[in-house]
């Protein structure tokens, strides 16, 4: 003890104390916190995170930053959750081709396995909504009428009454919901991608989300029955007016020309 106290005014004493404190706190942290992680170290989950991290470094880091902290070209991804990744990459929106008012839906370039790995990596950065299970978004047995009412109340302002999409300001838009898979609709509501507000379970319950998914499938998918014939894009009076002018009045004028050209004329010699 004497030796120690004799050197307590040594110029390096402060450094030694600091080192001891750091080792102690670090050691304590290593002893407690990472203990659980260490237990799961060899699981598939951490493998997926590792793979996801590699994919992230190649395909996403240039805009979202090497540790997903976000840059001027892309928002931070800490805490967005696996559902957001599954939606953005699963609909082909990410990786984005170019910055712009809004990133469009396009061809999906990752396999579902790769998307899951990316999602696992992003989920490991911070807590966020996870990818829904099939029983969460499966619309069987949902209330179509209720779904329609919810859709018209919450979604129709931007996506139009039957989900054909619409314009927002400055080149942004609400995309058409035609043939979007139930899982992606669920995730979009959950995470609120791009310009869309999010509708977490506290705002819109799982059951309500199912109702909306069922309604959209009934009115805006390949299975939709159009009782009146061609739906002309489902855009309402603008496309109807154009069709009426071109094919309605246009045809009638063609008929008029035909009728007028055929008449009981005296033959010219």
């Amino acid at each position, binding site marked *: 003890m004497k030796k120690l106290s004799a050197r307590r005014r040594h110029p390096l004493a402060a450094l030694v104390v600091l080192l001891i404190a750091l080792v102690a706190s670090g050691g304590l942290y290593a002893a407690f916190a990472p203990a659980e992680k260490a237990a799961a170290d060899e699981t598939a989950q951490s493998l997926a995170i590792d793979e996801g991290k590699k994919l992230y470094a190649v395909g996403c880091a240039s805009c979202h930053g090497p540790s997903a902290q976000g840059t001027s070209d892309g928002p931070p991804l800490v805490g967005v959750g696996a559902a957001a990744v599954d939606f953005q990459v699963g609909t082909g929106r990410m990786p984005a081709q170019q910055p712009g008012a809004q990133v469009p839906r396009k061809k999906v370039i990752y396999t579902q396995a790769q998307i899951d790995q990316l999602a696992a990596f992003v989920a490991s950065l911070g807590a966020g909504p996870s990818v829904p299970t099939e029983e969460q978004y499966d619309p069987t047995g949902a209330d179509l*009428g209720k779904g329609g009412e919810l859709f018209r109340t919450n979604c129709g302002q931007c996506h139009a009454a039957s989900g054909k999409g619409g*314009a927002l300001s400055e080149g942004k838009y609400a995309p058409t919901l035609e043939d979007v898979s139930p899982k992606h609709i669920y995730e979009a509501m959950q995470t609120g991608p791009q310009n869309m507000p999010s509708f977490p379970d506290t705002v819109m319950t799982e059951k309500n989300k199912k109702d909306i998914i069922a309604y959209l499938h009934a*009115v805006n998918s390949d299975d939709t029955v159009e009782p*009146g014939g*061609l739906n002309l894009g489902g855009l309402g*009076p*603008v496309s109807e*007016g154009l069709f*009426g002018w071109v094919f309605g009045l246009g*045809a009638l004028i063609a008929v008029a020309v035909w009728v007028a050209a055929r008449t009981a004329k005296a033959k010219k010699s």
Partner: protein
Amino acid sequence: MSTNENNESRSRGKAPAGERIADWADGRLGIYSLAKANMRKIFPDHWSFMLGEVCLYTFIIIILTGVYLTLFFHPSMNEVEYHGSYVPLQGQLMSEAFNSTMHISFDVRGGLLIRQIHHWAALIFIAGMIVHMMRVFFTGAFRKPREVNWLFGFLLLVLGMFTGFTGYSLPDDLLSGTGVRFMEGAVLSVPVVGTYLSFFLFGGEFPGGDFVARFYSVHILLLPGIMLGLVVAHLILVFYHKHTQYAGPGKTNNNVVGMPLLPVYMAKAGGFFFLVFGVVAVVAAVAQINPIWAFGPYRPDQVSTGAQPDWYMGFSEGLIRIMPGWEINFWGHTLVLGVFIPLVVFPLVLVAIAVYPFIEAWVTGDRREHHILDRPRNAPTRTGFGVAWLTLYMVLLIGGGNDIIATHFHLSINAVTWFVRIAVFAGPVLAFIITKRVCLGLQRRDKDKVLHGRETGIIKRLPHGEFIEVHEPLSQEQLHTLTAHEQYKPLEIGPEVDENGVRRKIKGSEKLRAKLSKAYFNDQSQIPKPTVEEYKEITSGHGHH
């Protein structure tokens, strides 16, 4: 007298049944003299003269299908729960109007087809009226004696628009409810009386429980009744004035060259009615219109994007969409200029085209009757004005569909709106200038054709090596057609002072008229048509000119 006639006819045997029926009818209706006067009424043949018929026939189709729809429609806003065939609306609360329209669409035999024929025919009816009006406008058919008929036609267009709007609102779906709300907003923007007017229209606070029943009466009774009367008056005047015709050999201001009403025109017009009905029915069978089930029932707390009126009201939508949201506060009262200014401009756009014939008549001072139509190129100022008006109308239509244009052409809606804001002012001016130049160019070409003949495209080499293009002289008929129009001279109001140096009294309106007349008919606004002397000089000359 009848005794003698009866004896005579008995001696010759009974007259054929048709003749006896005609005799019976003549004794009561006077059809013989009526038929004698009108059976041989002549109508000229041209496809553009059948545009009015398109309107008449679609109007008849609308009435026929409309009657069918009234058999099933309930103009009531009582709330009911839906239990029809359309699954995605099961159990939803809706007005009886919406419910019965759903019933017509899904559960009445032929109901949806009839509904679609009714709606498509309405769109085509008003489109036909616009095109018919433009035909009359660009050919100058509105000149004396047809000014009143022009106004009748214009009234039919305006009434057609409002009949269409009230009909579009009847199903009480989310789309049309938004349209009615739009209209209510416009009414509310009227200073001082706006609120009272709105309460009067809707029987209280919007939407209330009255407006469907009220619009129903207006839609099926009031407006169509007036329109039917106007259509009859319009047709009587067409009969009375006789039809106009395009210039050509043998066609003068005092005759009509064409085919008699009976049998030729009756057959053609009757056949044409069925062709029109057929085309409209095919369109209605192929393409869906106003799918109210996709919009859902109207609720004031819901709204859908992409909400537009039918195309004929589209220009009013455009006016609202491009207007900046200005408002003024005045002693605690808000004046919503962003809505009120479009409301004021809306009728002005329509009236601009309606009053043009009277302005032109005043400028030309022409009080003669005109039965020969102008070629649009020979009236460059009128044609320019017409195209400018159409440009304004089209630009506003683009404004009304700015969101659809933005999403489908991948543009920013703000950019589309700004384009329309500028084009509303610049477009008509540009269109006027360009159209006038095009007309003058065509006039020059006509003059060239008259004097030098048609370019044949045959290149001939002369013995001394020169190449010339062979021009073929026009036939006498073609020469007549190209030179039949007359040209006005600018109005002269004489010097400002008389011979004694005293200032003459010239009214301001006369000065304006002279100025306009100069703008219409000076050397820059019409190419003097070739004179007989010019023609003779050139055609009598030797060799190529």
